[in-house]
């Protein structure tokens, strides 16, 4: 029970330890082995349940394969990818997905930051406040999508009544339908963003802010010069997580518009080909492209924006 945990965040007294440590002690090796032993089963299970389907999807994407016609399965190499990338529908839906991602993530960042500040600074009812802010995130996306679909409905929704819009049909036009989808997404996931940002806020030592105050910095200057620079890592991680999530948006679109009025996203394209049309090959190819795009986004964040994922764990230098 009393063994030291190797990955403990280095605190001041531990500073000297690396000097005393031999290259690899027996004990360290044993601990490393124990680590593998403990993590091993989970690692194997993860590879089995994620690795196999991914590889299988890549393999299937090379075939013209309809689930209801297994005998007609043909190897078409990269034919499916050519079909997808030369179809205007793919690029249109790529545009819609990107638009939804940019709009929702930006709005969530601003709102999430404001909510994080509120949660951080609240003097009274802290727990109640935090719980209240997190409630939307605890709601299943499908349920929240239904709630907003009913809310924006032109027959029994509250939105039209509240703003005196009569029987305006939100889901009848591309822009208004996309607006409703974005509202549902932002409402649902802003709490997640604020939670990640709150973790970043909590890491800023109060001394910094007090020092700034003593130096005569205004509230805005403190936010801009002290809080934001010190939260950069947390903000980037929050943006990365949300962007990856937002780019795969499916539930809200599926429930609220069923993809009508040009609101289909890339996940919807994969669903339509794989589940509705049972064109497993073509659908797998769309999924593979979607996965590659998601990886590219992650790489862009890590390499270009230098997002340091370890910062989120509190391993500060």
């Amino acid at each position, binding site marked *: 029970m009393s063994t030291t945990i190797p990955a403990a965040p280095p605190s001041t007294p531990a500073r000297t330890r690396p000097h005393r440590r031999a290259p690899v002690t027996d004990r360290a090796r044993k601990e490393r082995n124990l680590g593998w032993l403990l993590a091993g089963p989970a690692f194997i299970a993860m590879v089995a349940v994620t690795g196999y389907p991914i590889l299988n999807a890549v393999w299937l994407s090379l075939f*013209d394969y*309809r*689930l*209801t*016609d297994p005998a*007609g399965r043909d190897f078409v190499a990269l034919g499916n990818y050519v*079909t*997808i990338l030369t*179809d205007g*529908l*793919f690029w249109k839906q790529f545009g819609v997905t990107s638009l939804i991602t940019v709009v929702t993530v930006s709005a969530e960042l601003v709102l999430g930051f404001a909510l994080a500040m509120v949660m951080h600074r609240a003097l009274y009812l802290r727990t109640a406040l935090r719980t209240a802010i997190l409630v939307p995130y605890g709601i299943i996306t499908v349920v929240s999508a239904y709630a907003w679909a009913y809310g924006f409905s*032109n*027959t029994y929704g509250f939105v039209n009544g509240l703003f005196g819009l009569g*029987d*305006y*049909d939100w*889901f*009848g036009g591309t822009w208004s339908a996309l607006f409703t989808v974005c509202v549902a997404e932002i409402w649902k996931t802003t709490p997640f963003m604020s939670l990640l940002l709150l973790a970043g806020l909590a890491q800023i030592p109060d001394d910094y802010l007090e020092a700034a105050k003593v130096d005569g910095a205004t509230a805005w200057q403190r936010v801009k010069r002290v809080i934001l620079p010190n939260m950069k890592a947390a903000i980037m991680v929050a943006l990365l997580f949300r962007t990856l999530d937002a780019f795969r948006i499916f539930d809200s679109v599926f429930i609220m518009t*069923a*993809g*009508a*009025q040009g609101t289909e996203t890339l996940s919807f*394209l994969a669903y*339509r*080909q794989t*589940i*509705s*049309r*049972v*064109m497993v090959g*073509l659908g797998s190819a*769309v999924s593979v492209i979607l996965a590659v795009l998601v990886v590219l986004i992650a790489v862009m964040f890590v390499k270009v924006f230098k997002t340091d994922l370890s910062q989120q764990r509190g391993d500060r230098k």
Partner: protein
Amino acid sequence: MVRHRPHRRVAGSALVLFAAACALSGCGGGEGGATSLTYYIADAAQADVAARCATESGGAYTFDIQRLPNNAAGGREQLLRRLAAEDRSMDIVSVDPPFMAEFANAGFLRAFTDQERQEFSDGVLEGPLKQSTFRDTLYSAPLYGNTQLLWYRKSVLQKAGVDPSAGPVTWDQLIEGASRAGVTVAAQGRRNESLMVWVNALVASAGGSILQPGSENVPADQVEAGLDSPAGAAAARIMHELAVSPAAPAGFSTAGEEDSRAAFQAATGGFMVNWPYVWAAMDAGIEEGSLPANFKDDVGWAAYPRVDAGTESASPSGGLGLSISAFSRKQDLAVEAIRCLADERSQKEFMISAGNPAALGSVFDDPDIRAKFPMADQIRTGLDAATPRPVSPYYGDVTGAIQTAFHPPDSLSPETTPRAANDLLEAVLSNERLI
């Protein structure tokens, strides 16, 4: 002792997890013994009939009822996924007729024998029977047939200057009359299966067909569409004209059957095309108090509107058939159960509780049915004239392409839509384009 405890706890937790997973996913489902049949139902009222049949069988069989999603596309997807995975826990499945060919072609359904075919088609109306057979084999025992009627509010007829009770009316007359009277013509403009139903009825009423005849027997990439025709143009024209006319209810491009009913029941309601279930649904509205007690006195019905004044309309065809999974291990017992589930008494019960018309002609002569459904004769005539949606092993692609090409209705054009729809449909079937 102390050392063992964690192991035991882990083992215990694993057991609990496994049990919970089983309870949630229903693993080992349908294992309720050799006499338990897993029955996938599409309508809650099927469960009541099933309960009676199980009791009457004297223990010969019981049902494990599984409910399918309440929209046609969702039901198709769930059945398709499970059948493609050769799920042996499925015995009797409720199949929406347009999807039957796709399942049958893939070998997912057990074909009824000649003797069974005789038994299950005896006395069944033409429309429901036609859509239960594929390549001259019966794959579904018709449980109910369905067709749309034209519903109207008697109080608006004079102002609109159209009288469907005096003889057949055309879509153009309805749109013009409703616009004049300031009332609506409710139809299903939502992009789902109901849009396909409307397009098919319009194309067929204009004397055309979405797929060229004989297309059910050729590979997907050789299927030829029939939309680039005067019939396809007529369909696009009528849909567009209604959508942009003052007679279109609010939210026309997102309105399904229930939205249509709401529009019809509203103060500006005038005309509506819809399935006969609306009649039973209006009763519910009256009971709840959301509709005045005498509402139904103002409601009339007539044959589905025509496209050309001189050509009889081809009303939409729907319904439900009971099929047996080809992977079921209790197929004979399932046939036995269907004998009860789809017999005359069951169809009558089902028609009364769910409002869905029977597939057997004799049910329409029943005094109880005639009392509850004053339009029984009209439905029966409609069922005989109903034109099924295209019979195709690739129906999923066909309906998907049509729903994409014919939506939203206000953007359609008789000049460009038919050709674009034709090209899209053929390209999708040839795996050249996405939908």
